[in-house]
Structure formats: C-alpha cells, structure tokens
C-alpha cells in the first residue's frame, strides 16, 4: 500500500497549495512552518494506516490535516495571548487604500479574512485552492455541501464589504 505513493510528487503538487492555504491568513514564515507540519503529519497518518484512499484523495486528507493544524496554531496563539490587531491596518480610509502597494493590499486582505467567522474563514481559504470542489470542501469540513456554499457566499459578501469600507 505504501509503495503506491510517491511523496516527492505529492510534496511538489501539494506543498504550494497548502502554503497558499496557510498564507491566506498567516504570515509567510508561519505558513511555511505549518505547511511542513501538515505534510509530515499526513505522511505519519499514512504510515499508521489512518488514511484510507478509497474514501478520498490524499489532497483532501492533507487539507483536513491542514485545517486541524491551523486550529491548533490559533489555540496556541490565544493561550499566549499574543494575537493582536495591528492598529495602523485596522481601518484605512478609502483614499489611503488606493495608495496601498500589492504587499499592503495582501496584508489588509489577510486581516479582513481573520475577522470573518471561523467557518467562513475555513471555507474561503479552502476555495483559494481552486482544485478542490465544493463537494470535497464539504467532505473536508464534515459539513453538508449546501451549508458550505452558504458559508462561502456569506464570506465573500462580508469580505467585499470589509474591503470596500
């Protein structure tokens, strides 16, 4: 069973996708660490026979692991009480926003995503990876597809509102 998986290829295809998932709401260095952690946990789970490929693709399992890794990260942050909003990026005026560079726009986008509800964040971040279908996202989050679509719609609406204000 283990011989059928080429981990080099999996890291090559899955690594960037997981990195984008984490980088949507976290700093690049944290996204880097959490991507590696997710890949290692996925390998370990596979070794332990906890991944049944007849029930889904390895990508889906990896994103399921990524979701847990991200939750754990935020749990630790809350425990350390070190997660603070940066006041200068809190509410930039629309005129000031037009002057923002792409880097600053990305930063503001991340801050806006962080202000969404947990489930909205999760759905939105999984849709950043355009290779996952809504049905797969629903399976990863263990939710009905209709609920996921509804969270997605609300998240997009809310994000747009935050970015326009």
């Amino acid at each position: 069973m283990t011989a059928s998986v080429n981990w080099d290829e999996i890291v090559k295809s899955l690594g960037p996708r997981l990195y984008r998932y984490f980088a949507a709401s976290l700093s690049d260095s944290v996204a880097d660490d959490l991507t590696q952690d997710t890949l290692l946990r996925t390998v370990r789970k596979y070794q332990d026979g906890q991944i049944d490929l007849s029930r889904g693709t390895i990508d889906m399992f990896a994103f399921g692991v990524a979701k847990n890794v991200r939750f754990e990260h935020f749990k630790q942050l809350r425990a350390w009480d070190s997660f603070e909003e940066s006041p200068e990026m809190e509410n930039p005026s629309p005129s000031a926003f037009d002057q923002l560079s792409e880097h600053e726009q990305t930063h503001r986008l991340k801050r806006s995503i962080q202000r969404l509800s947990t489930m909205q964040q999760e759905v939105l971040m999984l849709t950043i990876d355009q290779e996952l279908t809504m049905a797969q996202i629903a399976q990863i989050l263990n939710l009905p597809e209709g609920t996921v679509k509804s969270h997605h719609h609300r998240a997009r609406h809310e994000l747009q509102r935050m970015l326009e204000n």
Partner: protein
Amino acid sequence: MNDFKKDPLDLLRKKQPTDLQMHRWKVAVKMQFPASGSFPVGHFLQLTAAAGVGLVVGALIFGQGLKAQPQEIIQNAYDDATMEVVYTKLD
C-alpha cells in the same frame, strides 16, 4: 491599482513558496518516510555492502582459526601430558 474590484482572493492565489522551502519540505518528508514510494536502492546497497564486509571478515577469521587449530592441539597435548621422572641412583 485596486485589485479587489475583481476577485480579491486572486492576490492570495499568486503566492508561491520558494525553491528552498520546497526543498526543505521534501527533505523533511523523506526523513520521515525514506521509502518515498520508490524502491529503496540506498538501503539495498547498504545491506549488500554490509553482507560483503561480513563475508570477508568471516573468511579471514575462519581461515586464521583453521591455521591455529593444529598448534592448539599440540599445545593441549603438552599441557595434558604427564611427565615421569625416574631418578636412578647410580652409586
């Protein structure tokens, strides 16, 4: 300049890890799971080399042992031998 009019998430979709990051992840996964889905050639070579060295060392020791054997038998024969001393008073 404001890309949010299109799809704001496109900004995040552009993100790419560096080659160094990709390399680090690959190495980390390899260390975790060295088989990596392919035939473990490294392990096979290590085992073959170890077996070869074992055979050579074994042959040397065994060869020396064979040579040493007759000497040991003679030594043992000397050790176990009883010596009879006959004193003869001639006068």
